[in-house]
Each structure stands twice: as C-alpha cells, then as structure tokens.
C-alpha cells in the first residue's frame, strides 16, 4: 500500500511537470502565455456564435439564443478535436522524455488531456460569463446536469485519446483518415442540435452516441426547462469504460515496441 501511494505521488509530480513543460513549449512566456490555451475555443465559440446569429437569425426554440447555443456546442467540440490532434503520435513526439523512467506513456495523454480540459473550462466560464451579462444566456438552471454532462463528455474524449494514442503508433494510415472521420462525426457530436428538435427516428439512434447524451445533459444544465433533453446517461459509460480498458492494454503493449532515439 505504501509503495502504491508513493507511485501516485511520483505520477502526480510527473503529470504536473509535463503540463508545465507542455504549456511552455506551446505558448511560451511572452504576452498571454498559458492563457492562449483558451483562446482557440473562445474564438471558435464566439465567432461561430456571431456568424450563426446573423446567418440564421434568432432560434425558434423557447428563447434559446443562437449565441449561447453555439458557445455551448463548440467548446466541447474543440476539446474533442484538440485531443484527437494531441493524441496522434503523442508517444513518438515525446520519445526523448522516455529517458526518465518515472515518466509513463499514460502520463503524456493525461497531461495533454488536463491541459485541454482546463483550457476549455476557462474558455467556457469566460464566454458564458459574457453571454450571461449580455442577457444572451440564462444563469445555468441545473449546475449538476451541466457538470455531469461535461464530465461524461470529458470521459468519452479521454477514452478515445487512450485508444487513439497507441493505435496511431501502430498504424500510420490512421492519421490520414482522422480529418474525414472527425468531420463525418459532426452530426453525431450533439453540438449542433438538440435531439428533441430532430425527427423521433433520428433521435432514437443518436442517443447511442455518447457525445449526444453528454451534450443533452450539458445543455439541459444550462438552459433548464427551455429545452427537453433526450438521452441515456448509461450509454457513455458502456462505451467509454471498455474503450479505456482497451486503450490501457494497447498502451502497455506498445511500450515494449517503442524505439527511443
């Protein structure tokens, strides 16, 4: 038990060091520094919100504004897209650090995941603060649903990253099909509509997407009874937990094959 605890302490130390290192290499110390990590999700959500407001006009769904809907959809989506990018070849990119034996492969994925999650959360807090003050977004009606939806979304993203990181080391062609895959999955991302707005037939199938379930909960948490969520909270767990287990096994397997320069 003592050695297990000691192991955790070392891993926490490593993940913290990796996060600081990653922030430094990615954003440097000049100007905004690490605040850059929330800039992209913020710009995405903000600009798309503005664009949609002008292109589509106000939404006809019980006072849900286009800006708030776009912000709530795009910030989780950027988390997913960033993590897909960051997981690819995460191990070879960091290979030089494998010289230090206390750094485990998993730490690379986890450190990047934390950075992206924290960045998205900061971006979301910022933009929702602005929208609430501007009267374009309600104060979250059910914070528990908001957090549960966000947590489930993050869990599924982590599960995907844990599989993608080792798989991308095995098969380079994965890299070629990822852009089209992330594009094709957009309708299954839950970012662009609520299930209740679609045909009942479509909603029936979409609840099998963990993203959709998480987004329904997330948006119910924000908009409350202005929307009617249709979701199954268990499906994301049924999908994510086995994926995580497979991912961990693959990470273990790839470790033996990893060639470090």
């Amino acid at each position, binding site marked *: 038990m003592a050695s297990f605890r000691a192991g955790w302490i070392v891993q926490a130390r490593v993940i913290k*060091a990796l996060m*600081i290192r990653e922030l430094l290499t990615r954003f440097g110390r000049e100007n905004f520094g690490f605040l850059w990590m929330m800039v992209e999700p913020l710009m995405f959500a903000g600009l798309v919100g503005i664009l949609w407001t002008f292109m589509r006009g106000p939404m006809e769904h019980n006072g849900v504004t286009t800006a708030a809907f776009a912000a709530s959809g795009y910030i989780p989506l950027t988390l997913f897209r960033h993590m897909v990018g960051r997981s690819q070849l995460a191990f070879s990119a960091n290979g*030089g650090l494998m*010289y230090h034996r206390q750094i485990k492969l998993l730490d690379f994925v986890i450190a990047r995941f934390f950075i992206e999650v924290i960045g998205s959360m900061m971006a979301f807090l910022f933009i929702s603060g602005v929208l609430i003050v501007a009267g374009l977004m309600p104060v979250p009606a059910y914070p528990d649903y908001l957090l549960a939806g966000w947590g489930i979304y993050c869990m599924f993203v982590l599960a995907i990253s844990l599989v993608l990181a080792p798989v991308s080391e095995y098969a380079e062609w994965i890299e070629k099909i990822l852009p089209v895959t992330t594009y094709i999955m957009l309708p299954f991302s839950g970012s662009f509509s609520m299930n209740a707005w679609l045909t009942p037939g479509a909603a029936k199938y979409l609840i099998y997407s963990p993203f959709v379930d998480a987004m329904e909960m997330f948006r119910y948490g924000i908009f409350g009874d202005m929307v009617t969520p249709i979701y199954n909270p268990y499906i994301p767990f049924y999908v994510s937990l086995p994926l995580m287990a497979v991912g961990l096994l693959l990470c273990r397997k790839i470790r033996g094959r*990893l060639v470090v320069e």
Partner: protein
Amino acid sequence: MIRCHNISKSYPMGHGRKQVFAGLDFTIGRGERIGVLGRNGAGKSTLIKLIGGVELPDSGRIEQKMTTSWPLGFGGGFQGSLTGYDNARFIARIYGANYNDISAFIEDFSELGRQLKMPIKTYSSGMRARLAFALSLAIEFDCYLIDEVILVGDQDFQQKCHDEFFGKRGDRAMVLASHSPDTIRSYCSHAVVLGNGQGKIYEDIDEALAAYAAL
C-alpha cells in the same frame, strides 16, 4: 543491485528482425563498474537503454534495487525547444529535487554560463553532454549509465568529471559503454562484450578486451 535475467532484444529490420543480443544474464552490484564493449551498432546503447528502463527487453527481466540515472550521452532526456534552465527545472520536478540547489550546481559544474538561457537545440553535442552530466550529478544516483561520452570536452572539464565520478562518487556503480579499451581498462572491473547477436559478461577485463579485439 541491478540484476538482468536472461534479457533479449531485437528490432524490426526489413521483413524480419535483427537480434541485438539474446540470453544476457548479469548483475551489477553496489559500487561495481561495468564496461560495455562492442562495435558500432552492436547494441551498446541498446543495453544501456534497457538497464535505464528507456526501452523494454523482448524477453527476460531487469530487477532494480538501486536508483539509476537516465542514460547520459549526447542526446536524449531533453526537450530541444526549452532552455537549459527549463530542462533543469523539468528534471528537478520529476525527480522531486530542489531546483535552486540544482541550478546552482549546474551553473558551476557545466560552465555553460549564459548559454543555459538558450534553447537546448542550439547546443553542440558536447554542451548537451555537459548539461546531462551536471544534472545527473546534482540529483545523485546509486548507479550512473554512461553512453560513449565519458570525459567529454576540454581538459578542465574532463578533470572535473573524473573528480566527481571517480573521486567523490567512487562508491557508485556505473555502466560505461565505450569503444576505447583504455577507458574500460582504467575504470571498469568487469565488461560485457556485444557482437554477432550475442552478449557475454567477462569477469576479467583482459579476457573481455581480447574477446572484443577478436570480433
């Protein structure tokens, strides 16, 4: 003590695999200095990486009962886009060491001066090795893994390394890969000779050097 039980390593090459060594079995006791001899590509660095836990053996097991440095050499273990100080900070964090002590030591020992504020990718290979040696000495290990580059740099630096490794830390274990028979003879008590997909430990340095010369 570090014990290698029957370790084998191969790498994919074309459609097959290239055997680096197989069934290698030896022990590094506390304070023992072991040389690794072999031609270019014979697997000296590979063996050092396996002992350091950087890569894993195909089969066999490596038991670690003392703290071991990362393989010290011209590359590896650093992040090129970060400065010398940032790398030192990173290494201090992951090894749980105090950064202030470390930075004072590396400034003094590496003699890199203002270069420490520059990204590592601007360093020459000798400068990297200086930094790696300085950091590993600042952190203190029971066993140092040294790949090829013992006593890099100019006379002064060589003398400093010699004093630190063999004087102050004469009680530490060491695995030293080298091409140079003289280096191995003067520092090591046993040696592993690698060649032709095999590895063998020799308790006697002269025997080891004879086997190396015969490769």
